[in-house]
């Protein structure tokens, strides 16, 4: 008897759900239940998030004062490299799809599991396997930055080979998830769940899965070429034998720009789910949000060159990429307007998921509008590779993707664990996190304007070092508050998962399909496959004489 198949033993006895229907480590490790896999991903990712976060604190502490303070240059270079590699490849790229996506996708489309549960489990195993290579890279003292730019990345072959192998293997996990989700969404929607009724989180996951399968193979071949360059010296990225380091950058960013949207699109999907529920209003402009998601996914493949404005591309290509980059701003702006319009004339409840969602809108506005500084050629010449960029992408990735993930974790927490966290504590933690985050990265915009280059272990030779030191000091102090906020969130959620008050099946009176099954859901999600008759955003429809297509309702008059 294999472990993944013996789940029907006591299906009908009282309080049995996916968390407790089997016990023991192997019942989790061997599980093909999408909910358990999502949870395992979540725990592993938070582990790496903590390591990456500690490395960030090391980096910030070193920069707090001028000169060498706690670590030497080489250690500093390793610290920021590993912070990037771990946060990107092990935390935020699998990110929302692997955790909440895995958990929610089948629940939201009324299916019993994803299309290929074993493939799903394989994806998690591959992820764990890939993470070992990342540790190997640490052992070999990887210090290239997470971007692995050649020819610097040809100087420490064992470290770079380990890191590229890690990213390559993790890419496989990403592709497997993407293929699985695409097929699941295409083939396994409950009867009546047409494309125009699909929840926006599912749409976002769909757009993300498309990006995963289209973009990830490119980083695969790129890192494979870099691996072989290090192993055999094939020459393609090695300028002294006629190879081209800029080619590496093209191939690298052809993936690594779309991957930003792999991170952010699901977070946008989460916000699109949360705001209607706590505003008791239909999402405003459903179709526009869907098209914006797909549009962002499409445009994201045409803009990678903005990472290379000063890398040595021809001038015409620089103009072209700048022009194209501006188009990303439009669908993202549309989404922001739609979220705000959803709140209008609603009935707003300030729960912690709602606070996170509103914080997301604010932080993402900052991320998006500072992106305009970087898309504009004249100003990018100054900002490129400075702290302005560092602050910008932390607003995008931490302020966007991570805050979005945390919004979703708080929102679906009662569904996942069947218990509630402490709401008051959650709000305190949120405030610390929010203040800490802004206090860390707003000064970095100023540092960037002043010309502070990124990846610098020290700034004591700068002419106006006092101002730089002052701003670095503020940034570091707030980074501790930020870290404290994250720790409190984890303590609160961890305690709530085990000891929290029991939650009902649908504590927010949400119309989403995932809330129409017990909390936590049973192993098979639904006793019977539900039949969907309407979209899941019909809040307040009972007060209106129109349905969501604008058609007048036919109301039977009382006789």
């Amino acid at each position, binding site marked *: 008897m294999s472990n993944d198949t013996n789940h029907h033993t006591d299906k009908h006895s009282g309080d049995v759900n996916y968390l407790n229907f089997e016990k023991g480590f192997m019942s989790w490790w061997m599980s093909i239940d999408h909910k358990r896999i999502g949870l395992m991903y979540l725990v592993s990712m938070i582990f790496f998030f903590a390591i990456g976060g500690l490395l960030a604190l090391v980096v910030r502490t070193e920069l707090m004062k001028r000169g060498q303070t706690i670590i030497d240059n080489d250690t500093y270079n390793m610290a920021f490299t590993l912070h990037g590699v771990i946060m990107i490849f092990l935390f935020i790229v699998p990110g929302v799809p692997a955790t909440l996506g895995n958990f929610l996708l089948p629940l939201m489309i009324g299916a019993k599991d994803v299309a290929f549960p074993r493939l799903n489990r394989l994806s998690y195993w591959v992820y764990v396997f890939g993470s070992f290579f990342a540790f190997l890279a640490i052992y070999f003292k990887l210090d290239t930055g997470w971007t692995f730019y050649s020819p610097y990345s040809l100087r420490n072959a064992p470290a770079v080979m380990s890191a590229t192998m890690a990213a390559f293997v993790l890419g496989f996990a990403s592709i497997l998830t993407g293929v*699985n989700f*695409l097929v699941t969404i295409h083939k396994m929607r409950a009867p009546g769940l047409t494309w125009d009724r699909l929840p926006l989180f599912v749409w976002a996951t769909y757009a993300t899965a498309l990006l995963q*399968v289209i973009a990830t193979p490119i980083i*695969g071949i790129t890192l494979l070429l870099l691996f072989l360059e290090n192993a055999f010296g094939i*020459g393609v990225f090695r300028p002294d034998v006629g190879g081209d380091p800029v080619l590496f950058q093209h191939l690298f960013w052809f993936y690594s720009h779309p991957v930003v949207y792999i991170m952010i699109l699901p977070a946008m999907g989460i916000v699109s789910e949360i705001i209607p529920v706590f505003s008791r209003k239909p999402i405003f402009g459903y179709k526009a949000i869907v098209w914006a998601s797909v549009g962002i996914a499409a445009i994201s493949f045409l803009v990678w060159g903005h990472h290379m404005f000063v890398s040595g591309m021809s001038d015409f290509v620089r103009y072209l990429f700048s022009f194209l980059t501006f188009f990303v701003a439009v669908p993202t702006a549309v989404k922001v307007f739609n979220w705000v319009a959803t709140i209008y004339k609603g009935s707003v409840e300030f729960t912690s998921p709602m606070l996170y969602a509103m914080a997301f809108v604010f932080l993402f506005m900052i991320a998006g509008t500072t992106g305009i500084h970087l898309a504009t050629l004249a100003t990018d010449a100054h900002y490129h590779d400075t702290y302005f960029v560092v602050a910008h992408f932390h607003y995008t990735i931490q302020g966007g993707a991570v805050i979005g993930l945390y919004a979703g974790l708080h929102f679906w927490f009662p569904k996942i664990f069947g218990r509630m966290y402490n709401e008051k504590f959650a709000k305190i933690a949120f405030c610390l996190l929010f203040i800490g985050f802004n206090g860390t990265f707003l000064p970095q915009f100023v540092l960037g304007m002043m010309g502070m280059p990124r990846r610098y272990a020290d700034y004591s030779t700068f002419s106006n070092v006092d101002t730089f030191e002052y701003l670095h000091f503020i940034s570091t102090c707030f980074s501790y508050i930020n870290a404290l906020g994250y720790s409190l969130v984890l303590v609160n959620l961890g305690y709530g998962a085990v000891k929290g008050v029991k939650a009902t099946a649908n504590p927010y009176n949400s119309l989403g399909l995932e809330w129409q099954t017990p909390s936590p859901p049973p192993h098979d999600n639904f006793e019977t496959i539900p039949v969907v008759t309407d979209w899941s955003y019909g809040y307040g429809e009972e007060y209106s004489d129109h349905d969501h297509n604008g058609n007048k309702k036919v109301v039977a008059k009382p006789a």
Partner: protein
Amino acid sequence: MSHHETLPAGHYHHLEPEQAYHSAKLAMWIFLATEIHLFGGAFCAFAFFRWRYFDDFNHYAGQLNWQLGALNTLVLLTSSWAMVRGVDAAQKGLNKLCGRWLIVTIILAFVFFGIKAIEYSTKLSHGIYPSTHIFWGLYYTMTGIHALHIAVGIGLIYWLYLLTKKERFSTVYYTPVEVIGLYWHLVDVIWIFLFPLLYLLGGVGAGAHH
């Protein structure tokens, strides 16, 4: 003991057989798209460097043994044909016949390996390594990744063969044979692009040059 153990492998408790079949095919097509992207990156690099080092690339392409390359193309095409016969037999529920065709496919794959090994060892014995020139770096990389795909294919087809031994396939269930067949054809198609690109373009380009 649980109910889906009694169903053929690949059928899950939450999917109707029809749905499972179409899902598996869709998944394989998406996966093949990712494979094309993987090789696409290498093709881009090849195109870029061929444009930059046009004469070098023509010169080195001329050193490849196009007769052996052509022979290997023939071998792979034949193996694809054998695979098609295997799929056809599986669809008719003829497990034994299917197994035979799968073995033919595997044998041809090993013939491909043999010829490839001759080519590699000849080049290496002449002192031509991946580091000799970017052309050779890309030649070894691209044919190497392709060979890796052949090796994976051999493993998968052998697994199918074991399933035919267990009489697993029937007129209503032959999904694995069909999707792995798709994979095998893609590996074949990629070679059909690699062969002219690496072996034949040299002659044409060089001719145009003089």
